[in-house]
């Protein structure tokens, strides 16, 4: 199920992959309730919540109205309270507790964590001694202009951080000209801080709560380029799992630390992938990510550890390549041609009927898009945009083809890159859309039929059921 919650003009409405924005209440009367935080504009952070099956959500409530337009992070404790850290309009890091009571959340007053220089990409966690931690990236504008990963601790539930807001905290990295990204977790009496530094390495440091000392800096991986496309999780048996995308290698990796040694690097995906999220379920790592098949569109995928590798499949049945794509030329000797493989790839100009040399041409020519599940969006990339023609969009309602206007508006194959929302989301798909057979293939079919011939014939490059998704934020259990 994919449901549209809101729209936003913020740079990154759902944050950055190492951060946390979606939570599940762990117990009590409201167990299972989801709470989502997101940037609804360039300055506002809002909260909404929903109960299973999440078909309806609460009205958004404003939590912060003076945020900088940059990613924030939060944490849900075992009572359902949410702890939010964000960069405000002065580029200071602020902490805010959002108290959960009687099924609703109420925001408290913001407390300054750090006001030195400019600060970004905060991350919050609570350690085994119930100290609050804020990890963040400090841009040393008053000094060497480098970006440092820093940590500050509050021993009084967020009232005071370190020795106060002008205390810059502990520097964990040695500084880089490029912005860093940071995440963290606790395992027993240790706090692990994992960060991407200098766009070329993923590193970590460990704080021992018993001895109150930081371990030295270690490298997890080095490569071009490692930015914020990484995430970490802790298994039930105390292992640290790390997944990270290296865009210079077009690969997604996984490594695991058992407390004494690291596993080897395991390839999860071997094409460009972004925004990985990891969680352990029954001590098995599950990784969710956005695979990029080309043209900036993405297909959500899930990878589940199996043996020494991962089994990878589509995350949602409504998103992915089409199971069948037919081009139909009404005047051709062979009317239907199967272009399923060609439509799935980004190869330029290979989706056309061989007799018309066009994706669509004269009246009654059709493009059929079929999937075993209902779908709500279609990404269409053309090598040649059409001109002069018109089409109608139709689905099969069990008796006949039913014409409809896509939710994103009419599209007549007259622009070369178009994301067509057939319906607003998967919850809005026409309820009478039925499976039928086209060219002896059963599927949920969308038929795009020419009603006025094209003067310039469109030629296709890539046609998939996908959107331009990014910044996945996987649900985290309150703890």
């Amino acid at each position, binding site marked *: 199920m994919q449901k549209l919650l809101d729209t936003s003009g*913020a740079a990154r409405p759902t944050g950055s992959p190492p951060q946390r924005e979606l939570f599940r209440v762990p117990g009590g009367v409201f167990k299972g309730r*989801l709470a989502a935080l997101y940037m609804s504009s360039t300055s506002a952070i809002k909260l909404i919540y929903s109960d299973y099956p999440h078909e309806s959500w609460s009205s958004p409530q404003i939590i912060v109205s003076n945020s900088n337009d940059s990613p924030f992070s939060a944490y849900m404790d075992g009572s359902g309270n949410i702890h939010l850290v964000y960069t405000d309009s002065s580029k200071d890091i602020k902490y805010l507790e959002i108290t959960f009571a009687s099924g609703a959340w109420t925001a408290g007053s913001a407390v300054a964590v750090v006001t030195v220089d400019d600060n970004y990409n905060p991350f919050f966690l609570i350690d085994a001694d119930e100290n609050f931690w804020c990890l963040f990236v400090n841009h040393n504008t008053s000094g060497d202009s480098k970006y440092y990963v820093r940590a500050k601790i509050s021993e009084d539930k967020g009232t005071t951080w370190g020795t106060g807001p002008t205390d810059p905290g502990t520097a964990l990295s040695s500084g880089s000209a490029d912005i860093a990204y940071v995440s963290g977790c606790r395992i027993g009496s240790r706090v692990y801080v994992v960060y991407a530094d200098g766009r070329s390495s993923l590193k970590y440091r460990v704080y021992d709560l018993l001895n109150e000392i930081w371990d030295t800096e270690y490298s997890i991986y080095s490569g071009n380029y490692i930015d914020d496309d990484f995430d970490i999780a802790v298994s039930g048996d105390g292992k640290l799992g790390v997944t990270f995308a290296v865009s210079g290698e077009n690969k997604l990796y996984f490594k695991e630390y058992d407390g004494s040694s690291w596993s080897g690097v395991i390839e999860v995906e071997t094409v460009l992938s972004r925004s990985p999220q990891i969680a352990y379920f029954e001590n098995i790592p599950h990784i969710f990510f956005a695979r990029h098949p080309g043209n900036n569109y993405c297909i959500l995928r899930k990878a589940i550890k199996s043996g020494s590798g991962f089994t990878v499949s589509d995350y949602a049945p409504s998103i992915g390549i089409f199971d069948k794509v037919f081009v139909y030329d009404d005047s051709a000797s062979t009317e239907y041609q199967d272009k399923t493989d060609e439509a799935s790839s980004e190869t330029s100009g290979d989706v056309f009927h061989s007799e018309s040399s066009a994706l669509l041409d004269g009246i009654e020519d059709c493009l059929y898009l079929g999937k075993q599940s209902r779908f709500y969006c279609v990404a269409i990339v053309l090598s040649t945009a059409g001109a002069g023609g018109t089409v109608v969009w139709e689905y099969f309602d069990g008796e006949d083809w039913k014409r409809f206007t896509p939710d994103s508006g009419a599209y007549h194959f007259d622009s070369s890159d178009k994301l067509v929302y057939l319906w607003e989301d998967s919850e809005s798909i026409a309820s009478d859309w039925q499976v039928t057979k086209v060219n002896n293939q059963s599927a949920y079919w969308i038929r795009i039929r020419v009603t006025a011939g094209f003067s310039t014939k469109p030629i296709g490059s890539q046609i998939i059921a996908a959107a331009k998704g990014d910044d996945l934020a996987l649900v985290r259990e309150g703890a």
Partner: protein
Amino acid sequence: MSTTIDYLKSNRKWLVRDYVVWGDNGTFGADMIMTESVSGDDRIVFSHEFTGETAQTVFFQDLVDHRGNNLPENIKNPGIVLIPRNPGSSFILGSIGERSFRIARNSNQLSNSVVDLLIMEMN
């Protein structure tokens, strides 16, 4: 409001016989939010999927009652009673939606469960 129609539509019940429960409760609710870039303001989208091949989501519209009639797509405020038809144990997972619900058998049992579903529109 039509009292007659309201009366006829309220408190409807359906009995679905011999429903096979194969899903188990060993599934992971992989919920997430994400950003979809479009021209203009970006879309914030919630995704709800279960991982694993064992999740069993039942849609009302896919069920047929003991008289041979399809159930409606939407049932307002539904309640469900499971009537065991074999020794296996089954249960509803989470809340019941107006279009669907999740059902599971005990993860420790090897065979599927068979139940009758008594579905009621509570209104």
